């Protein structure tokens, strides 16, 4: 493993009885980057994160985290990781700042040192005014920020974020992205999972697309869009059930076409021109939208399904 690698996995597998959650994946996370796992629910992202976080034993393959093997040095790895779980699991019996204090003590951080860090962390999470409040009184976005601050209490070299903005309103999401971006600027390595393509596009330097326990594509967001999608997409909306029929009509109008129950996607390099051709073909969709291709289209191309089905 080179010094610039924070996590490396080869043939990594995880099964629960007969069910295989992660089916032999290879990936490498480099120092200082934001690395993403993009995929729908049940793709194996969280299982992968738990193995990297040394809280779940792998079933097979090789895994190295911060140069150590989670099977043997789990506690040492965890002492150098920051973990932000999918579900907030703050200590509901403690106040905002006591949450950070008690959590820091699990890492054995001296009390005096901890008090100084908590001031900074509350400031980072924009929660300084809420320090003595009960956790229950916080909004969803505040709880998330506190959970992230808690994950930073041991000054980790690597931070794992599982679905960091799921369930938050747009404003809270943007504030959180801003905080994560500032972490990245400070040189920390971030690994995150998401099923939001905009989140992956905003935050990730590199990502892998997962489906059914496999990695089906890897690269930077831009590379993936270039490789698996076209520049633009024309989205035609139809009454439910009619999209598949329309698929035959538009075949040939674009480089590639895909259909869901109520929509047809035409992958093309010039969206306006294709939309024009659709109009001339006599097809009458309820609406027509021309947009830039995104990671959602990459996923669609690779699996024929939508990300957040």
């Amino acid at each position, binding site marked *: 493993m080179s010094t610039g690698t924070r996590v490396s996995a080869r043939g990594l597998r995880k099964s*629960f009885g007969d069910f295989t959650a992660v089916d032999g994946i290879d990936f490498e996370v480099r120092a200082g980057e934001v690395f993403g796992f993009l995929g729908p629910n049940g793709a194996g992202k969280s299982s992968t994160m*738990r193995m990297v*976080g040394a*809280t*779940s*034993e792998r079933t097979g393959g090789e895994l190295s985290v911060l140069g*150590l093997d989670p099977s043997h*040095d*789990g*506690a*040492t790895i*965890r*002492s150098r*990781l920051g*973990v932000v*779980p999918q*579900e907030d*699991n*703050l*200590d*509901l*019996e*403690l106040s905002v700042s*006591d949450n950070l204090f*008690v*959590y820091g*003590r*699990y*890492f*054995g951080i001296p009390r005096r040192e901890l008090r100084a860090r908590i001031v900074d962390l509350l400031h980072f999470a924009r929660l300084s005014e809420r320090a003595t409040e009960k956790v229950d009184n916080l909004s969803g976005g505040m709880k998330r920020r506190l959970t992230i601050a*808690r994950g930073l209490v*041991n000054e980790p070299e690597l931070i794992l974020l599982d679905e960091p903005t799921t369930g938050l309103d747009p404003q809270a999401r943007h504030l959180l992205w801003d905080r994560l971006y500032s972490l990245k600027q400070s040189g920390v390595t971030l690994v995150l999972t998401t099923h939001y393509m905009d989140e992956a596009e905003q935050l990730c330097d590199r990502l892998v697309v997962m489906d059914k326990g496999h990695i089906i594509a890897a690269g930077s967001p831009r590379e993936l869009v270039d490789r698996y999608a076209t520049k633009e997409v024309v989205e035609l909306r139809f009454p439910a059930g009619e999209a598949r029929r329309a698929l035959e009509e538009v075949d040939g109008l674009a480089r590639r076409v895909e259909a869901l129950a109520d929509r047809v996607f035409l992958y093309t390099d010039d969206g306006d021109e294709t939309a024009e051709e659709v109009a001339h073909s006599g097809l009458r969709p309820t609406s027509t939208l021309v947009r830039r291709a995104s990671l959602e289209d990459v996923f669609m191309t690779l699996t024929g399904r939508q990300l957040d089905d």
Partner: protein
Amino acid sequence: MARSSLTLGPSLAERARRPSALVARNFFVQVRAVPYVWASGLLEPILYLLSIGIGIGHLVGKVPGPGGALVPYAAFVAPGLLATSAMNGAIYECTTNIFAKLHWAKLYDAVVATPLGPTDIAVAEVGFATFRCFLYAGVFLATMAALGDVRSWWAIMCLPAATLVGAAFASAGFAASCFMRSWTDFDKVQMVAMPLFLFSATFYPLSELPRWLQLVVEALPLYPGVALCRQFSLGHPSASAFGYIIYLSVLALLAGEVSRRRVTKLLTP
């Protein structure tokens, strides 16, 4: 950074530090937020002591103690209540509390992401509950002494005996909580604890029962605690004490091992 621990495993100090951080968390929460929980845990057994010992004691008079000599009923029943309060204290701390932290508050999911592992959690929670039983037993024993229910200096041994009862039931409670699926499962805990309280020779000498029933009672997990405390508080220790201590120690260790395995499976699938 020199990390010799990589090859040798964590140092002994680190092994001890991890569970103690969680124990400290429990003190932090309970001492600050719910002092009345401690007060009620102390008060309840003492109310029993006053009501049953003094009230019923007047009606009953004297009963045969461990050595065969007659002792006042209050002095007879007090060590039984001491052992029971240790059991109840352990069960109170180590059943619903554990289940809530495990499944509802998801506290342990956060804890296993730190250097602490599932084993540290089991050790911390059972240790904390046991310590609480130790404190309660101390206050209870002092109350017994003040009421004249203590007959010998051997009584001081009631303290480790009650603590051992606490450890055994805290382990068992933790293990059971790891198998519970819903809050209603906890009715089963009361269905076990209540008969143990009533039938472990707590309120009358074992000799009152027919031989076959004596054998049943002697097998119950609260009985060794009651018998042990009674031998000590009435100043009649016998060789059977070793048997009781082994019984309770084995129960604590077995239940502790079940707890460790089960909680590892739950928290680090």
